[in-house]
């Protein structure tokens, strides 16, 4: 095993300041992701188009089975996309790509996992866990340098450097999740996929992890894809929110706009399910359920993701578009 730095020399993903036309860091074009079970193919995502802007936190919300985790894993090449293109800084990262590019990608994109107890290797100590990426690419000059890097990142997530020799089972769920964040951040990535990082944590600990992700994003100018199923959390942390249902994006807007003027019925049902911490109001709550049958799409009435107002996209057919525009007018007028 050579001791030199194993990061590929040529950084294909580096682009100069001048070459940033629309500042999109990840572009997904007509992506199809499916699983092969024996001979059957189960399509999870089909004809997906998504642009993630540099430096933003994009929230991806949907229920289990909607395909949101699959999208994250496709970008990072755990479940590769079967067709379509995923571009990172305008360089293709889906399908068959050269080994060098694949290796380089791992230094640019990292992932934070959902389950703090399953995502850490129970038989390894914290030092090994956090420096696993550093070791793989030998991103350090010497042992002291590596330990220094690991200690610094542990301090940044609020843990003490003495914990290096401890094992994961000695920590609480929140601490473990922070170790997972440290592990991803020590690689200094540009793009982080946070796959439901707080779903498995207690309410009171979620705040700490959310703050941490936000802090990192601001300090390192990260782009974050935040996958979750709880809209209230996503609203706090995201700049834009994409709502996904059954493998298709049904609405995409800035966080505040989605809450002010969410149009798609599925978005409305998600919004109505957000728990309001006020007993008097919550008890009178009416849940709105979403029935996909209500759309009555047909061959002539095909739904597409249309931009109904600047920055606000909804999946609607032509007839529904008219209704949504009317609703927006009503909301604007009502104010």
């Amino acid at each position, binding site marked *: 095993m050579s001791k030199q730095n194993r990061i590929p020399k040529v950084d294909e993903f580096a682009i100069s300041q001048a070459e940033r036309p629309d500042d999109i860091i990840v572009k997904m074009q007509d992506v199809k992701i499916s699983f092969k079970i024996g001979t059957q193919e189960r399509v999870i995502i089909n004809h997906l188009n998504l642009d993630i802007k540099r430096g933003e936190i994009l929230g991806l919300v949907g229920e289990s089975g909607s395909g949101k985790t699959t999208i994250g894993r496709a970008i*990072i090449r*755990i479940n590769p996309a079967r067709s379509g293109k995923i571009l990172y800084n305008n360089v293709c990262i889906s399908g068959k790509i050269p080994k060098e590019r694949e*290796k380089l990608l*791992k*230094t640019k*994109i*990292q*992932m934070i*996992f*959902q*389950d703090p107890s*399953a*995502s*850490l*290797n*129970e*038989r*390894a100590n914290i030092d*090994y866990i956090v420096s*696993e*990426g550093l*070791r*793989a*690419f030998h991103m350090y000059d010497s042992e002291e340098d590596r330990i220094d890097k690991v200690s610094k990142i542990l301090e940044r997530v*609020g*843990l*003490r450097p003495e*914990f290096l*020799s*401890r*094992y994961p089972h*000695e*920590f609480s769920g929140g*601490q473990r999740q922070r170790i*997972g964040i440290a*592990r991803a951040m020590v*690689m200094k990535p540009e793009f982080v996929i946070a796959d439901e990082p707080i779903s498995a944590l207690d309410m009171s600990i979620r705040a700490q992890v959310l703050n941490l992700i936000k802090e990192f994003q601001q300090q390192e100018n990260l782009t974050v894809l935040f996958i979750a199923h709880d809209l209230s959390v996503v609203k706090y942390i995201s700049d834009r929110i994409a709502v996904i249902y059954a493998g298709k994006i049904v609405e995409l807007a800035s966080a505040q706009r989605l809450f002010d003027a969410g149009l798609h019925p599925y978005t409305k049902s998600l919004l109505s399910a957000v728990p309001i911490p006020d007993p008097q109001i919550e008890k009178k709550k009416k849940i709105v359920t979403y029935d996909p049958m209500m759309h009555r799409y047909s061959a002539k009435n095909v739904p597409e993701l249309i931009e109904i107002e600047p920055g606000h996209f909804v999946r609607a057919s032509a007839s529904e578009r008219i209704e949504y525009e009317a609703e927006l007018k009503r909301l604007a007028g009502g104010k």
Partner: protein
Amino acid sequence: MSEIKKDLFREFREEETIQIEDAVEQNVSELFKVVGTSPENIEKLDAVPFSYWKITFKALFKKPFVIVSIVMILLVVFFTVFGPLINFYPPVTGHGVNAIQGEKFGSSPYYYGPNSVNWFGVCGINMGGWFAGTDMWSCVWQGARLSLLLGVVVALIDTVLGIIIGAAWGYFRWLDPILIEFRNFVNNIPTLLLDILLMQLLMKYMAQYGFIIIVFLLCALGWLGLASFVRNQIIIIRNREYNIASQTLGSSSWTMISHNFLPYLVSVIVTVVSTAIPSAISAEVGLAYFNLSFRVSDGDITLGQVLTQAVKDNAWMNHPYLLLGPMIVMVPLTIAFFYLGLALSDATDPKTHR
């Protein structure tokens, strides 16, 4: 806070509010000052650092029989090494030397029970037409030496091969269909037949290597069981999140196998290894019955051959002491190793630690 005696409160802690009030009255202003939290104390870990390996060790020696087993094994090894130095007669000299009296014996089998000279008795070995008396004590320990060596070597090779092949089998998916077919093929053929065929093949081409042939034979397919097991375990854990995380961090395949998979298989591996040693010894015994055990140079004998002699022509039914020697070696060894294997697998299983 240092001014207030902590002992004072220890007494009152369980009592009614009224009594606490008394103590509190004296120090009101000091006590009711807002202090808040201190950053150092917040992230401390209450648990004493404890490592998996230390706990395993402790758990292992909690069981008394573990020590007994280890002692048994050590005793057997001791006698294997030093037994022949005590009361030793060369097992079979090939010149018909009587172990007891230095005389040739006639054409009938000769057996003599344990006595002050021959602690395990005497067994007549058929030298083709005439019988040479051999001292069982010497035979047994000489045989034990070879058998033990055989057992350890075969077990080690099988284990190493089994782990490596099994790990690769489970991790590299393209290997899976190939090796599964291979395993099915091997499992469908009776082992004995396979062994006989292999043995004859080996004898034809490698007759001079004796010991190595048997090792080769037993190892040839012995790794399959462990490999299969390891592969199953790896398939179970390979999709867990920490393995996916390792992938996204860029760890190489062999790093993942050694750091992510194998530590979880320790429990399993240890069980299999410790039962592999007695299994190898027993396998050799089985082969010896069919005269497949290695042809030894003069003076060497294996435990299997000793047992074969005892069993031939139902000799042991009339002279049960013939079994005494081999049993004294094999029974404690087998029990001890099996028990150690079980105890180790329990001790290394993290679920039994809490």
